[in-house]
């Protein structure tokens, strides 16, 4: 089974890059984990988000901004190919502030970010709006909210439909997908790379590790960085509610089917994707403060999902210097950056110019030892 690329990981990062490669005519095989894997792709809020990204790293902020501009065309392309509605909308978004001090810090951070890059100074648009001014964007907003930062670049989509559309598009392009095929080891071989799984071996000229937290084990086998850690986010979703024209927020958003998706906790609890009563109550409390009309909404499901966090929170795109042709892709913005992953990033990999074009996101910044 020789292909051009082996991709380890069938989440939204691996599948977006797989799609970009397959669309270019590359022969791609994806090796995926089992159905009950951690799979952040199924647990996230579906935001295509720009504001707040890259606060300490302007390159990341620029990347997020540019990626958001290419999202609509990307969504349209996938929908045309698969007839799956990704429910992408980019009509702006609001990051809420619960009190004055939070608002002050937020505005200072954004202003500082803009000063750090000419690109951002020119193109990153945002504005602080008080509660009153937010009412048009967020009708029903509760009394206790101070205000929030509005930005026109933010949007949302259905991340589950995105994942499905990527799978469907890849299928139609002839990609080989192997479910429940966990990779035990990766190693270089004569014509490229070899992935050993419990039942067989897979070979390809080049290999891309897009294994999320699985990179901790797999990436170092090919001289790549495995320095990611899980950061848990708990989420709640309500029953379907009547649709309201509201912009999405990182705290909560209404999905196309009407349910409210509530989340945004950050917990360092290791590999535990459970939920805790404390956090669920806290999320519910915050949700009814944001929209008091949600008080009667019934909770359908609560879950925990693990973000894949690099030491500085920014994406990691690296090519192995020791084993040319091996790459590691890792980020917790797999939805926001999906269009970028399928287009520019896939292109850079095909051309083997990853480190050259996206050097700011190389693993070198974490001082990964050159050999292990």
């Amino acid at each position, binding site marked *: 089974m020789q292909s051009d690329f082996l991709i380890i990981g069938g989440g939204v990062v691996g599948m977006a890059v797989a799609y970009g490669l397959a669309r270019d005519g590359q022969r791609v095989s994806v090796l995926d984990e089992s159905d009950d894997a951690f799979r952040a792709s199924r647990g996230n809020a579906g935001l295509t988000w720009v504001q707040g990204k890259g606060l300490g790293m302007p390159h990341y902020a620029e990347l997020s901004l540019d990626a958001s501009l290419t999202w609509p065309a990307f969504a349209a392309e996938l929908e045309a190919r698969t007839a799956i509605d990704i429910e992408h909308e980019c009509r702006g978004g609001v990051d809420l502030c619960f009190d004055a001090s939070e608002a002050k810090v937020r505005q200072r951070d954004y202003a500082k970010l803009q000063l750090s890059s000419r690109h951002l100074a020119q193109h990153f648009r945002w504005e602080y709006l008080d509660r009153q001014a937010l009412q048009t964007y967020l009708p029903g907003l509760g009394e206790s909210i101070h205000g929030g930062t509005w930005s026109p670049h933010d949007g949302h989509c259905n991340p589950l439909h995105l994942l499905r559309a990527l799978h469907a598009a890849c299928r139609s392009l002839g990609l080989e997908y192997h479910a429940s095929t966990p990779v035990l080891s990766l190693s270089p071989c004569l014509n490229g790379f070899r992935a050993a799984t419990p039942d067989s071996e897979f070979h390809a000229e080049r290999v891309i590790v897009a294994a999320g937290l699985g990179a901790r084990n797999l990436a170092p086998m090919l001289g790549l960085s495995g320095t990611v850690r899980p950061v848990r986010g708990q989420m709640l979703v309500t*029953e*379907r509610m009547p649709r309201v024209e509201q912009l999405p927020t990182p705290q909560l958003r209404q999905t196309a089917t009407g349910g409210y998706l509530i989340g945004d906790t950050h917990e360092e609890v290791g590999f535990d994707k459970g939920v805790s009563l404390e956090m669920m109550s806290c999320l519910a409390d915050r949700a009814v403060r944001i929209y008091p009309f949600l008080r*009667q909404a*019934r909770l359908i499901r609560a879950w925990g999902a693990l973000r894949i966090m690099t030491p500085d929170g920014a994406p990691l795109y690296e090519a192995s210097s020791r084993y040319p042709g091996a790459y590691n892709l890792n980020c917790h913005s797999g939805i926001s950056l999906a269009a970028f992953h399928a287009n520019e990033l896939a292109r850079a990999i095909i051309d083997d110019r990853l480190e050259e074009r996206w050097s700011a996101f190389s693993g070198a910044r974490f001082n990964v030892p050159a050999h292990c």
Partner: protein
Amino acid sequence: MFQRIAESSVIDGVDIQLDGEICRVPITLSVAAAVLFIKGDADYRRHVDGHARAPFCLMGCCHECLITIDGEPNRRGCLVSVAEGMSIERQLGGSQDDG
């Protein structure tokens, strides 16, 4: 749709309001059973796809009996007993069946 058999023991009745109409029903009934008793199953609830739905399991599993009780929407009618003065509203809004 459903009727009481003559042989069943005499049970006290309570007055409930179903969509504003006062009805007397046996006190042992759940809200879902009371609605089936009074109105039958044809107009119990309208589902998200606009089609009619009615209670299916009556034991708390299927959630087909969702109904508004004393102003609180989407309660499982099969798990709540009728009570004197209780106000029940069927959830018949939403998109209409076009097929």
